């Protein structure tokens, strides 16, 4: 494996020099909308969209400037200002990896902004929603653009904050408030890993900046222990943000937020951050074949299966999609464990997933919009005639995610599977199995929603959504159609990313007729057929059947919440109660006891003051005698 090309300090102006504008525009938007408050209610959403689009324009211009440079200069560090003197400066790193993310974040993000104009048109708090969306985009851009771990961490937590605000957007619903808090707290567990990882990095390598880190490692290859520790700690961070096992539990609850938020969290931002972290640190801390890279692969494989299994049992359309996100991110993690080729497919899948998952989520939102915010798929059925555009775009997204040949998901997912099998047979074939399950649960979703009998509530009048919502859907489904082929065929993405993530010994070669590829297709077809047998051909009961033990297992999110509750929450509550009791009775009790003791004993001593003058006289006499005696004694010595 060849290491990535050296980072050069950006000197000239141009769009790369002004790439901080990408972060600044949406941040400014958020600030204006929050500070001016109600005054901006009328045009706030337009400002939000404009800021996001402006950011997208900057990203495109910077991208064009970057590909105009020769390959060995495509990693440009832009110094901004001195952040913590003597420790770290704030700066941006514009390279193929970060710019790919920027394009995805601002592009898909802008589409989600536009869509939200329509989706949130009836919400009195639409302006606040757009300010949070802008904040989200801004934080995510800082995360991917920062040229050091501290800046990355600020963006990382900023994303956490924005997701907290957005998941809890309908804060008056207790469930939303709890879900928001849960997302933040679980994310913080991951943040702990990233934080401690930074401690180890700076202590070992004396820098937190990517460019210096590369040089430090090249000049002085570190021992395995520290690097393994760093890798595992960063992986913990990635698990939190990307909802990988064992920190996946927040993701399903996060569906409490408005649907565009789910699209933003799941497609363009947030959950991709963990993958970004692993890929960005890959050259430093996740060398191929190292134990920490294996850990990444195991986490990815386990999560892709867990997410897929959860997805099979959900009747809530958003939760089904959430399970699918877990699963797809699991694929990316699995890919990110296997060096530059893996990175390419992981990032490729991340980009295509960004499109088709946003497409699916926004499509689900469009369905809900037409169905009085009903999320239960058992109350849908036969919607393809009522909302044709939504159906068409959703269907394209569906074909893309199950890996239908020639659509985007086919290329990128297949790439990951083949790379995985090449390196690790067991995990690779598990990924093939996961693809089959994906075929089942996604087909189930499509059949339950758009086909079969109408099972609508009496007051439901499904209708197609307005253009402001359907146009973004069309754009996204276009991406879901062609993007995979464009990126993977003739290795476009691989060659573009090489300066940032390094080159493999052998460039990837996409095979249309490999054994794993054909096996995947076969399993997907079986899964889809089984779904047709159970949900397409047969009547879907509009009340959830009791289901077998396995169904319940999946419905309960594999008992992840129950596990967290019994392992952390309840013992935590006990610990808190004990600590409070100890503080009040133990520590403070000791203090108050001492005070009471002194008070009590002085109360007794007080009794010596009887008020009888002759008693006092007697004690004076005794005292005098004692003194005289003492003096005599001393005098005699």
């Amino acid at each position, binding site marked *: 494996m060849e290491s990535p090309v050296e980072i050069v300090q950006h000197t000239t102006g141009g769009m790369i020099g002004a790439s901080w504008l990408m972060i600044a525009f949406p941040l400014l938007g958020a600030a204006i909308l929050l500070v001016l408050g109600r005054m901006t209610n009328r045009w706030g959403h337009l400002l939000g969209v404009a800021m996001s689009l402006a950011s997208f324009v900057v990203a495109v211009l910077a991208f064009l400037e970057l590909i105009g440079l020769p390959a060995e200069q495509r990693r440009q560090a832009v110094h901004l200002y001195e952040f913590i003197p003597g420790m770290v400066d704030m700066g941006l790193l514009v390279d193929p990896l970060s710019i790919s993310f920027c394009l995805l974040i601002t592009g898909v993000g802008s589409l989600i902004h536009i869509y939200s104009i329509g989706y949130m048109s009836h919400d009195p708090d639409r302006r606040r929603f757009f300010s949070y969306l802008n904040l989200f985009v801004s934080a995510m851009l800082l995360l991917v653009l920062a040229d050091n771990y501290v800046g990355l961490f600020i963006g990382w937590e900023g994303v956490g904050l924005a997701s907290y605000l957005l998941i809890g957007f309908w804060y008056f619903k207790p469930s939303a408030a709890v879900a928001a808090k849960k997302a933040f707290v679980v994310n913080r567990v991951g943040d702990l890993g990233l934080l401690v990882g930074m401690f180890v990095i700076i202590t070992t390598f004396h820098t937190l900046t990517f460019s210096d880190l590369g040089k430090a490692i090249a000049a002085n290859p570190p021992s395995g222990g520290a690097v393994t520790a760093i890798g595992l700690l960063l992986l913990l961070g990635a698990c939190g943000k990307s909802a990988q096992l064992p920190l996946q539990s927040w993701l399903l609850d996060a569906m409490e937020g408005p649907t565009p938020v789910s699209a933003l969290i799941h497609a363009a931002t947030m959950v991709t951050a963990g993958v970004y972290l692993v890929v960005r640190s890959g050259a430093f801390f996740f060398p191929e074949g190292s134990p920490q890279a294996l850990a990444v692969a195991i986490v990815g494989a386990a999560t892709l299966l867990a997410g897929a299994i959860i997805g099979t049992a959900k009747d809530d359309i958003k939760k089904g999609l959430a399970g699918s996100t877990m699963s797809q991110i699991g694929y990316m993690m699995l890919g990110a464990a296997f060096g530059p080729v893996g990175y390419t497919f992981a990032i490729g899948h991340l980009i295509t997933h960004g499109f088709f998952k946003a497409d699916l989520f926004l499509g689900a939102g469009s369905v809900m919009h037409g169905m009085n915010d009903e999320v239960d798929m058992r109350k849908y059925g036969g919607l393809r005639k009522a909302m044709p555009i939504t159906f068409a775009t959703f269907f394209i997204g569906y074909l893309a995610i199950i890996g239908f040949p020639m659509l985007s998901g086919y290329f990128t997912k297949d790439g990951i599977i083949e790379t995985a099998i090449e390196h690790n047979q067991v995990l690779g074939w598990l990924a093939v199995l996961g693809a089959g399950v994906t075929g089942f649960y996604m087909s189930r979703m499509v059949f339950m929603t758009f086909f079969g009998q109408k099972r609508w509530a009496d007051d439901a009048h499904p209708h197609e959504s307005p253009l402001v919502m359907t146009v973004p859907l069309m754009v996204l489904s276009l991406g879901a159609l062609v993007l995979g082929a464009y990126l993977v065929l003739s290795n476009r993405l691989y060659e573009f990313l090489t300066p940032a993530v390094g080159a493999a010994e052998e460039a990837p070669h996409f095979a249309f007729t490999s054994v794993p590829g054909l096996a995947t297709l076969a399993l997907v077809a079986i899964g889809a057929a089984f779904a047709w047998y159970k949900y397409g051909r047969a009547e879907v009961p509009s009340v959830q059947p009791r289901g077998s033990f396995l169904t319940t297992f999946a419905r309960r999110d594999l008992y992840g919440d129950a596990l967290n509750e019994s392992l952390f929450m309840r013992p935590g509550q006990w610990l808190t109660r004990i600590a409070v009791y100890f503080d009040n009775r133990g520590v403070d009790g000791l203090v108050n006891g001492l005070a009471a003791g002194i008070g009590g004993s002085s109360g007794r001593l*007080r009794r*010596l*003051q*009887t*008020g*009888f*003058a*002759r008693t006092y006289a*007697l004690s004076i006499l005794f005292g005098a005698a004692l003194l005289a005696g003492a003096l005599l004694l001393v005098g005699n010595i």
Partner: protein
Amino acid sequence: MTTHYLILSGLLFAIGAMGVLIRRNAIVVFMCVELMLNACNLAFVTFARQNGNLEGQIIAFFVMVVAAAEVVVGLAIIVTIFRTRRSASVDDANLLKY
């Protein structure tokens, strides 16, 4: 040859102290305090004589002055107490306690 004076002084002091401790009448207690003071005066004068200087005698004068002032204040207090409480017993005047 001053030993006898000192013994006398000690006896007077002991008598005074006993009186303060066992008598209840405020006037008698007061007298006993005076007796103790004068016992001290006697000792001072004796020591002055023994050491051949005047310091003891000077102190005796101081004590007398202070005793006189004390008599003035003390008797006034006793008289006032007697007026209000119709009693001159020191044990009855025990309100100033814990």
